[in-house]
């Protein structure tokens, strides 16, 4: 169809693509207008507004959270590769990297999701709602993290022992 071809050349995609996005933007615009634009930016504190948190959420993840954990992981991986090369690379050598990475990821994930209790933020509203303080949470998180590293360390030790036994029996 000639009209579809000219739409594709101009718009960059077919009519279905355009329809889907028009409907989608329509719903989103409806939400924003029903809410009222003033509600999006209706605060003396600019960072306590919805539009800032909405766009900010994407920005904080893409430009802060992701780069931080990507760089940490790249440093750890580079360290592991260096260690391997120096260590003579016996094929039965058990790599340490994941035994550090996985409990670290677990600990970081718990901190990310449960940080209000762990860093005792929102203590006032927490007390009003529950009648309790946030005291035990930071300690519990540390214990959970420590448990993760200990279990991972135990797993690593087991694998090293098993690898050595296999190497010993091969000789």
């Amino acid at each position, binding site marked *: 169809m000639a009209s579809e*071809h000219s739409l*594709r*050349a*101009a*718009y*960059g*995609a*077919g009519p*279905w*693509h355009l329809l*889907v*996005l028009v*409907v*989608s*933007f329509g*719903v*989103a615009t*409806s*939400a924003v207008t*029903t*809410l009222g634009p003033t*509600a999006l930016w209706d*605060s003396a504190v600019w960072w*306590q*507004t*919805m539009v800032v*948190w*909405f*766009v900010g*959420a*994407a920005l904080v*993840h*893409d430009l802060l959270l*992701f780069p931080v954990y990507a760089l940490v992981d*790249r440093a750890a*991986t580079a360290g*592991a590769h260096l260690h391997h090369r120096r260590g003579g690379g016996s094929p039965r050598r058990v*790599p340490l*990297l*994941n035994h550090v990475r*996985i409990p670290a*990821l677990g600990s970081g*994930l*718990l901190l990310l*999701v*449960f940080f*209000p*209790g*762990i860093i005792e*933020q*929102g203590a006032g*509203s*927490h007390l*009003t*709602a*529950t*009648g*309790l303080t946030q005291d035990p949470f930071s300690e*519990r*998180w540390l214990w959970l993290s420590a448990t993760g590293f200990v279990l991972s360390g135990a797993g690593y030790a087991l694998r090293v022992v098993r690898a050595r036994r296999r190497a010993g029996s091969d000789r």
Partner: protein
Amino acid sequence: MTDTDLGPREPGTGEDYGFPRVLWRAVAEHPPPGVGRLQRWRSPLRGPWLTSVLGVLLLVALPVVTLTGLLSYIAYAPQLDQARPGDVGWLHLPVFDWPTRPVWLFRVNQGLHVILGLMLIPIVLAKLWSVIPRLFAWPPSRSVAQLLERLSLLMLVGGILFEMATGVLNIQYDYLFGFSFYTAHYYGAWVFIAGFVAHVALKLPTMLRSLRSRSLRTELRTSRADTLPEPADPDGLVATDPAPATLSRRGALAVVGGGSLLIGGLSIGQTLDGPLRSTALLLPRGRTSGTGANAFPVNRTAEAARITSDLTGSAWRLTLLGPDGEVVLDRDQLADLTLRTATLPIACVEGWSTSQTWTGVRLRDLAARVGAGESTRVHVSSLQENGSFNQASLLANQVADPDSLLALRVNGEDLSLDHGFPARVIVPALPGVHNTKWVATLDFRSA
């Protein structure tokens, strides 16, 4: 053929651009400095298959989270003008009278919404990790179509992160954001829904094709040493110069799934009674306060509600208003009426719940005392003067249920002050905040 196929290529041009060609080509040929360095993606795991596996998990689970969220709006009774946020135009499910049976309806709805929502956090983060090369690719768009699609992705990604952030903060009573949680979370959901539906509509064929490109069974048997990058894809997800794998694909999926189960395991305790409640080690409702029969979690203490013992002491009266006039009862008179005992859960919008045994007077018996008939609504007022939940309205079906009580005792003992002494409402399947504590007046007159 991708979704944004521009048709037959013009001879001589390496890339396809939409209208206006000059603009898009200029953008493409003038990348900002350093963009090239950002393209050095090292993980060999990235690719359409991994993205699709994570995508299919989200495709199944996110509609459940969204639907339970939209249902909770209906549970608050928008037909009584007490749903939050207020008037939302057409942005709601068809309104119906929230039933009272099964009694665990709101408990399961909210528990599912919150716990499943929390468990999706690692999966969402993994999905974002797997497609992040697209964010930093240059040019960002080659046509109007691609630009609009990227805008819809902002709605999707911003939306889900906004929902997760506000949700996570709200369930831990941390109102860092400052604006109204109900308003933000509800409208944010609709922006997310718009982005999600667009994304699924446009990307479903790609997802299905990518899932079929590799065998899951084979990947589950592939060790780290045998892990190779996926074939190069037109979207640029696969790294051009990957490092050797430090984790296999099955390992990566296990780590993500393990994170999900860890979160789930630490959250489900908030909905369980008995010793298992304390497994929710890092959440507020894994702990309990109070003693004896009143040892279950409190929402809003008497002190916070500024309820004092002289308000609730021997001077307290319950006022009933109805077509036949006004009836005033003190606590002893109330206790002399026919009492009913029912075991009912009480569940809050934050996803936690507890089940206790309540004893009190049936709401419909109190309605009959003032001449109110079968299908009467009621407006309940509390002694509490501040706060938004010092009053609530109940639908006719909620008043008529045989287990809807004005409770005087819980688990055999008088209610504690924190749990609503001298009397509180308890209705099956009703959102927790509408089970008004420290009741002062029951108004059965229809408006």
